[in-house]
């Protein structure tokens, strides 16, 4: 069952399907309506509604003072957001694409991630940094990076990424509500994924930090997040033919990392594969493998394997399909989980 199918199954009858993009827009809208300190800022987020239209309509509803087209300078945007947060606002910053967040890394690593700590809690920074990330949309260079490794390695940041339309709403609301800075990674290629989620009855906003078992299974666990969830669910369907009943865990947030849910699953299945688009070497997968192995060592029938992007710069559009973890590569890897033993 694909994500969309699952979502449809779960939703009450009569709802119109909504896209992840719409759910994100609605999350910001509701947060802004509820809390006057929420401000949206970034390049083209106002009049245009963002290059992905995720902020569509917000400037019209809330005015330019709360939804601001900034000058074109990412360090300036995030740095200004820091100052605004110091004064009690809750900025929601849009970085236009993954690689265009890099100019803001000094502000992110040296201030955003550390300010609460530096001031013994006196100056928390409730900033949400929305970053469209990942590939699969035929984007040219610098538009498809999976940059989560940088964020995950930075203590003081939360790193959240939705894989379903419901979560796009719920997790973004929770991120904006968080008193800590959140890097909110939006899987570009799921922007137009749909479910019967309805903006009229948005899901309850739960705190970030809990993984979700998206499919139960007994043979092995696929651990994944964001853009790779639909691929893993598809792989799990296909695996049935091979006689494997795969469990699929959607991490939803990389920091905090829900070790308990993951460990419980892997202890049960005894085998696991971590799947993500980011390059393998130094990517989040290594961390997950290390933790899971430490906690599940005597339950494991085989080493925890990974299916990830290659250790290369993101490829040009015409070659990206070879780079991205696909169903076949996942199944090939599941097959390497020492089933004979």
């Amino acid at each position, binding site marked *: 069952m694909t994500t969309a199918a699952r979502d449809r199954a779960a939703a009450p009858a009569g709802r119109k399907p909504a896209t992840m993009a719409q759910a994100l827009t609605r999350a910001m809208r509701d947060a802004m309506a509820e809390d006057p300190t929420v401000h949206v800022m970034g*390049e*083209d987020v*106002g*009049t*245009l*509604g963002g*290059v992905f239209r995720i902020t569509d309509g917000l400037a019209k509803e809330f005015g330019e003072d709360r939804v601001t*087209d*900034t*000058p*074109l*300078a*990412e*360090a*300036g945007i995030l740095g200004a957001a820091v100052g605004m947060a110091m004064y009690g606002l809750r900025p929601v910053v849009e970085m236009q694409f993954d*690689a*265009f967040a*890099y*100019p803001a890394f000094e502000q992110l690593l040296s201030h955003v991630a550390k300010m609460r700590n530096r001031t013994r809690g006196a100056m928390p920074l409730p900033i949400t940094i929305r970053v469209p990330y990942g590939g699969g949309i*035929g*984007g*040219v*260079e*610098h*538009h498809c990076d999976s940059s989560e490794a940088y964020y995950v390695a930075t203590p003081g940041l939360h790193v959240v990424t939705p894989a379903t339309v419901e979560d796009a709403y719920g997790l973004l609301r929770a991120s904006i509500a968080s008193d800590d800075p959140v890097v909110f990674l939006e899987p570009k290629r799921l922007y137009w994924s749909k479910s019967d989620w309805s903006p009229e009855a948005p899901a309850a906003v739960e705190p970030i930090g809990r993984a979700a078992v998206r499919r139960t299974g007994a043979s092995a666990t696929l651990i994944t997040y964001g853009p790779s969830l639909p691929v893993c669910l598809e792989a799990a369907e296909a695996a049935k033919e091979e006689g494997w009943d795969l469990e699929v865990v959607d991490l939803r947030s990389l920091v905090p990392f829900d070790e308990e849910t993951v460990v419980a699953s892997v202890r049960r299945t005894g085998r696991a594969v971590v799947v993500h688009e980011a390059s393998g*070497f130094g990517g989040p997968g290594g961390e997950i493998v290390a933790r899971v192995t430490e906690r599940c060592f005597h339950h494991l029938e085989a080493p925890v394997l990974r299916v990830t992007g*290659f*250790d*290369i*710069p993101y*490829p*040009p*559009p*015409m*070659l990206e399909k*070879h*780079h991205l973890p696909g169903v*076949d*590569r996942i199944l*090939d890897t599941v097959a390497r989980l020492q089933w004979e033993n």
Partner: protein
Amino acid sequence: MTVQELPGASYQPTPPPAWRPRTDAAPLLPDAEPHRVLGTPAADRVDPELMLRCYRELVRGRRYNAQATALTKQGRLAVYPSTVGQEACEIAAALVLQEQDWLFPSYRDTLAAVARGLDPVQALTLLRGDWHTGYDPHEHRIAPLCTPLATQLPHAVGLAHAARLKGDDVVALALVGDGGTSEGDFHEALNFAAVWRAPVVFLVQNNGFAISVPLAKQTAAPSLAHKAVGYGMPGRLVDGNDIAAVHEVLSEAMERARTGGGPTLIEAVTYRMEAHTNADDATRYRGDAEVEAWRDHDPILLLERELTARGLLDDKTVEAAKEEAETMAAALRERMNADPVLDPMDLFTHVYAEQTDQLRAQAAQLRAELDAEAAS
């Protein structure tokens, strides 16, 4: 009444010891209004041959833009950022370069690269999506088309500086948009260039917008050329649709750089007549009236008027230019209609000079997958 005579001030105040007024010869403030040549007395001094060459290039450039946009509709290009309306800047930038000079284009400037002599298919490779940079930058001395805004500017400075250290006669010309001037890299590059007196020229194409954001939200400066003041370099403001003016101002700056006079910042006032790219919807952020107002200030039109007034533009010339443009477009269309030849193993070939063990293993994995696929 001098200071000494003041009641209470019985000593001689001195300025701070380290402070020295600078007396650079370079003009401090840029032109009060955009420099123009066409339709002014200055046009008289422009070589007719140059004007006619510009004309042919402009016509070709316009046709190139149309063809590239058409290719997006046919799915042959993933995306195309048009320079319709900005052709005067693009062409002039290419024409003022000597053989050994370097061009540092932004992502929008494929036309400048093509006008410098780059094969248009190679220029469009990035946007077609079969590879990133479609050409060897050393061949025509054109740096890779640069997408992260303003990041190419320090490269231009470094290259120009290196050439000067080596004693080579090389000037770097770097292109950037109005939006790009807000980035920190713009600032750092211009400062380095001025401190090092590097032979580099910065051409800002102020086309009114950074995607949807108009200049008024980008800067409060009197002009972008005024930014030169803060770096201690000359700043020039020029009508970016007047190709003779752009050519003149650029040539002067290139010459100054070449002869040890250091960098120049040039703002060319122009307009992006089409949407940001084919994927953009410009009606969301600007009205037709504004676009229409610029039609009468079209770079081709301005030059045509001048050439006509001077009796330099006969039907034959017009026809020949059109034909040349059509030939280029037809060839481009045909070549772009062929599917590019792809080798997925290229993914691993140029990550490092020598493949790491890890990459070798990954390459082997992909090879095996491809072989299996081919066999099935």
